[in-house]
């Protein structure tokens, strides 16, 4: 019964991995070489993409986790209107196509006709319109905000699901012991939610590292490599510069990075389960 799946694994994973590795060690003439890796580590853009990826992941993930947790806690408080709020807050951003989310935010960030500048100025938060996507730093902030919007619903769903499995008695016991709302949250919800939290954190980190369409649509990695992450750089290398072998090498570097992160997380989780 497991055979079809095993076949898929063998055909795709092994074949793809090997062909990628082979590609990364050959040059355009088909000779065996290390020059692809060397040129990556000599490439200044590579270090920039590492830094950008870290900022992108840290900003997006912390925003998504925090917002997701807040929404899950709030949704858990209410009884009526659950379906409505869940549909609008958790489902809508999720169901929005990546490319649609990208163009939608790009249009809202438009410096002249964008609605965001208009609202922020009318609210008195900003004095003047700001060119969101024109400078590297603001562009990074802009794509991170858009990504939080697009992705917080998943952690929200995970957390909501996790919170609903916490036994009610624990809260009652804590209340009898005189714990206030914050105490109950800190001493009951958070520890009980820890396994779900770790899983969610791992998945969001990995997904965010690998997430490509939003940046591609909104900034294309620009301006001046300001939002270029490893993934968008791989895209640029293969489809703009047509340096497939260097792209393959960079893919393998990324591969190792993600694998290490996943390994560290799973080891931590295994230790927690054992403890």
């Amino acid at each position, binding site marked *: *019964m*497991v055979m*079809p*799946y095993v076949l*898929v*694994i063998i055909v*795709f994973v092994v*074949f*793809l991995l090997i*062909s*990628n590795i082979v590609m990364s060690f050959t040059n355009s003439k088909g000779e065996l070489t290390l020059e692809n890796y060397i040129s990556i580590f000599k490439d200044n853009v590579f270090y920039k993409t590492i830094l950008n990826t870290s900022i992108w992941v840290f900003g997006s993930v912390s925003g998504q986790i925090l917002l997701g947790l*807040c*929404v899950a806690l*709030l949704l858990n*408080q*209410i009884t009526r209107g659950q*379906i409505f*709020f*869940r*549909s*609008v*807050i958790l*489902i*809508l*951003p999720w*169901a*929005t*196509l*990546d*490319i*649609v989310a990208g*163009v*939608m935010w*790009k*249009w*809202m960030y438009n410096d002249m*006709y964008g*609605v965001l500048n*208009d609202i922020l100025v009318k609210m008195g938060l900003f004095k003047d319109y700001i060119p969101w996507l024109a400078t590297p730093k603001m562009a990074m902030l802009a794509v991170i905000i858009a990504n939080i*919007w697009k992705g917080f619903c998943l952690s929200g*769903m*995970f957390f909501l*699901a*996790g919170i609903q499995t916490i036994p009610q008695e624990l809260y009652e016991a804590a209340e009898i012991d005189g714990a206030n709302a914050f105490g109950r949250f800190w001493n009951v919800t958070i520890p009980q939610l820890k396994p*779900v939290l770790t899983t*969610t954190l791992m998945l969001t980190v990995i997904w965010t590292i*690998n997430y*490509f*369409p939003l940046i*591609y*649509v909104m900034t294309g990695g620009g301006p001046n490599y300001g939002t270029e992450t490893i*993934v968008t750089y*791989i*895209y640029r290398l*293969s489809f703009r510069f047509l340096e497939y072998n260097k792209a393959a090498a960079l893919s393998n570097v*990324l*591969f190792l990075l*993600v*694998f290490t992160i*996943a390994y560290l997380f799973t080891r931590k989780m295994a230790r927690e389960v054992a403890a």
Partner: protein
Amino acid sequence: MKRSTKRKTMKSLSYILLFFIAIVVAFPFIWLILTSFKTYQEIYSYPIIYLPKSWTVEHYQKISSLDFKSYFFNSVIVGSGTMVFSLLIGIFPAYAFSRYSFRGKGMLLVSVLIFQMFPMIVFLVPIFKFLDWIRLLDTHLGLILAYIPFTTPITIVFLRSFFLSVPKSLEEAALIDGCTRTKAFFRIIFPVTLPGIAAVGVYAFLFAWSELLYSMSLLTSKSLQTIPTFLSVFVGQYQTRWGPLFAGSVFATLPPLVVFIMLQRYFISGLVSGAVKE
């Protein structure tokens, strides 16, 4: 008394905050819909016009004249194909993972998860070459094949959690009554978990529905391309044609939105068991 009033304030506060969050979250999408009904003059007006003065359907007419229907149907074909194949490939391993213990089971399950961890872009060039080699490049079947490795892992993980939620005693009773394993699966497990299976299927469908990178790169014939590619055409290097882009976006988002809302119960319950029982 005091406790119940406290609880009530908590509840009302939650409602107020949720309303606020809901407005902020829904706003971009509402803005998208509003913009799709504005004339270009209103889209590029300064200061900004919030509600369209004269609701126009010119952008919707524009996309229909560009044969949006054909892109829509292509997306339906690719989405359904991906759904069917992922379920067919995933359902039995998932059942096996939930019921039998065998050597290497843990490793297989981990390998399922690991594939989830690799960015799709890493495999684009190898898959491109592979499809070219088996002569399925620029076909719907080829694109579906390319999606399978990305959808099956999550399919298996979710399906497994649904199967785990069915008590073993149910099928054991059937086995004692002389049912075969396969029969027991289709007679007992399958009907009980059908909503869950549907939810997982929809997930696979929507993965294919919204995927941009592969569909853009693997389908080069115009008559075969899917909605994301259609939309990407309006995003130019220097100029973006917002009107038709947003009209198409509305149509692209509505089907998944409706289905997701209808099946949300199963997604959330699937996630509960998926995230908690691992």
